[in-house]
């Protein structure tokens, strides 16, 4: 484990920002700290950097307890949410800052900065000030500044939050590729599930100061362990009583039944669908065009659920009656999440 947190606690006044936080990160991995705002993810990042001090617990980097080690001696690079570029310095001076502080050789600084400027694709803009750059360019400069002194660990606080949607997509891919190329252990904080799933090797999900689940994007998405994780990904809806839907196993003490849009099959009444016997009839409350799909809000068996419908199928209108079939649902009990498959799927005899 390259970075390790052991039973970290941190409070700001009455607010518990970290509650017994423990996890480990392997060298060379790219980790996403994912959670809603106020879940304590930024606090974790700032504690690893040494910008905040934990109330209790230990932080280890490369096997050494760093609690009492000055931030600048921890071998980290930090990319701030709003970049925090030095606004009275040029792009060149911003990137060279860390090296100059370390009193590196002048020729080396020149070479290193030139190398980084071409890495971030800002050749020719060395003499610009941050205010003369676009959001995406600033982000790249902040990244270059953070990695200039060759840190062993890179921390990024909401690296894409302040950039518009189109550039964000581009930057994500770029950052992912660049970090993989450099092989630097990185942790980034985000509240955006898509971003975490797309960019990270592993996701650490935080909620209310606690770590909910750690795993690869596929694991945390497909196999949520806690009630929070189950409801966090996707446009989830909750069933008031899942027993009203056909062919699901009965469980005791179920607190919530959660449905994601991809769990739902919607068909017009006159459309042929398999598993029709296990479908329920619902009524469409709302339709919203989402570009590549149409999002439907459907009232069925007393619950309101969201579903997607591809554009290649006949259009469904508001007020129309439809057949709704659920492939699977998540149910939670005592903060644990369980996947329930529709029994029809494993039972071939029900075919029509």
């Amino acid at each position, binding site marked *: 484990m390259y970075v390790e947190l052991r039973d970290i606690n941190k409070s700001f006044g009455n607010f518990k920002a970290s509650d017994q936080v423990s996890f480990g990160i392997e060298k060379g991995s790219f980790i996403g700290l994912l959670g809603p705002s106020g879940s304590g993810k930024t606090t974790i990042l700032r504690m690893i*950097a*040494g*910008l905040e001090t934990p109330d209790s617990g230990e932080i280890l980097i490369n096997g050494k307890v760093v609690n009492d080690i*000055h*931030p*600048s*001696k921890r071998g*980290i690079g*930090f990319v*701030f949410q*709003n970049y*925090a*570029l*030095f*606004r*009275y*310095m040029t792009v060149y001076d911003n990137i060279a*800052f*860390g090296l100059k*502080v*370390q009193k590196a050789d002048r020729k080396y600084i020149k070479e290193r900065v030139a190398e980084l400027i071409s890495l971030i694709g800002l050749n020719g803009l060395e003499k610009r000030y941050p205010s003369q750059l676009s959001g995406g360019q600033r982000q790249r400069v902040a990244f270059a*500044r953070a990695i200039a*002194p060759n840190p062993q660990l890179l921390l990024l606080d909401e690296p894409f939050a302040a950039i518009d949607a189109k550039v964000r997509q581009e930057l994500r891919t770029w950052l992912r590729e660049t970090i993989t190329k450099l092989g630097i252990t990185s942790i980034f904080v985000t509240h955006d599930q898509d971003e975490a799933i797309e960019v990270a090797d592993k996701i650490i999900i935080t909620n209310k100061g606690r770590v909910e689940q750690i795993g690869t994007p596929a694991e945390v998405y497909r196999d949520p362990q806690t009630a929070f994780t189950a409801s966090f990904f996707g446009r989830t809806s909750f069933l008031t009583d899942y027993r009203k839907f056909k062919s699901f196993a009965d469980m005791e003490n179920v607190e919530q039944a959660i449905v994601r849009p991809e769990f739902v099959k919607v068909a017009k009444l006159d459309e042929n669908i398999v598993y029709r016997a296990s479908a329920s009839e619902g009524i469409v409350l709302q339709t919203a065009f989402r570009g590549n799909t149409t999002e439907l809000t459907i009232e069925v068996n007393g619950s309101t659920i969201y579903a997607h419908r591809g554009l290649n199928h006949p259009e469904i209108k508001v007020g129309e009656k439809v057949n709704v079939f659920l492939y699977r649902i998540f149910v939670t009990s005592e903060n644990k999440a369980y996947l329930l498959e529709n029994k029809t799927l494993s039972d071939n005899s029900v075919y029509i």
Partner: protein
Amino acid sequence: MKKTDTGITKWLLIGISFLFIFVMLVLPLFTVITEAFRNGWAAYQEAVTDEYTVKATLLTLEATFFAVLFNTIFGLFAAWAVTKFRFRGKKILTTLIDIPVTVSPIIAGLIFVLTFGRQSAIYPILQKMDIDIVFAVPGIVLATIFVTFPFISRELIPVLEAQGTDEEEAAALMGEKWSGIFRKITFPHIKWAFLYGIVLCTARAMGEFGAVSVLSGHLRGKTNTLPLHVEILFNEFKYVPAFAVSSILVLIAIVILVIRSMIEYIGKRNGEDVR
């Protein structure tokens, strides 16, 4: 219709502003100058080069210099402390900084007389150490410092607050020392507010009358500052010298404003973001 409305409002507002500034500012200034030269250049020269006037001018400059020096250092530290750190009593400190502008200068003067004068408990100690404060130059400097001390910190606090602490944190993370952080990151940011604060502080320090009046004792040639000297001359019905001495204060004020504009001009030419 709407367009003519804003036209009228615009010119009315501009007109009122100009009229107000003319009556309240330009006219009195003009009067000071014409009154000063009423008896011609020779009389003016005589009044200005008078031994007591020269001494009063030097004392004013001395008090101003120390007040600005002290308040620059104090103002910077106070603004830095208030905006960059979280601590108990921060609200109290920011409120206390404002006291000099809310308390009447006369009362400020009296407070110092009571603190350092003959009635005071520390008077014998000061006496033993051979330090005179009341009715002496240190008292004047002290009063000037007191009256002007919010000027610089008040200019700096909003600017520092708006900047936040991210850039400093970024620099600290890369191992920069606090002196370097201040020089390379914080100071470039507050430069113009700082300059403006110094200008305000200097102007106010030179013109201070109330607190200094109580503490000075009006000893001509010893503890008389320019504003006090003007009052004495005026009370002695020496109108031309009174206005002539006033014109010195006006002149210094203009010089300060010109210097400030010049520095700002140079800053703008270098593409910097001036207020």
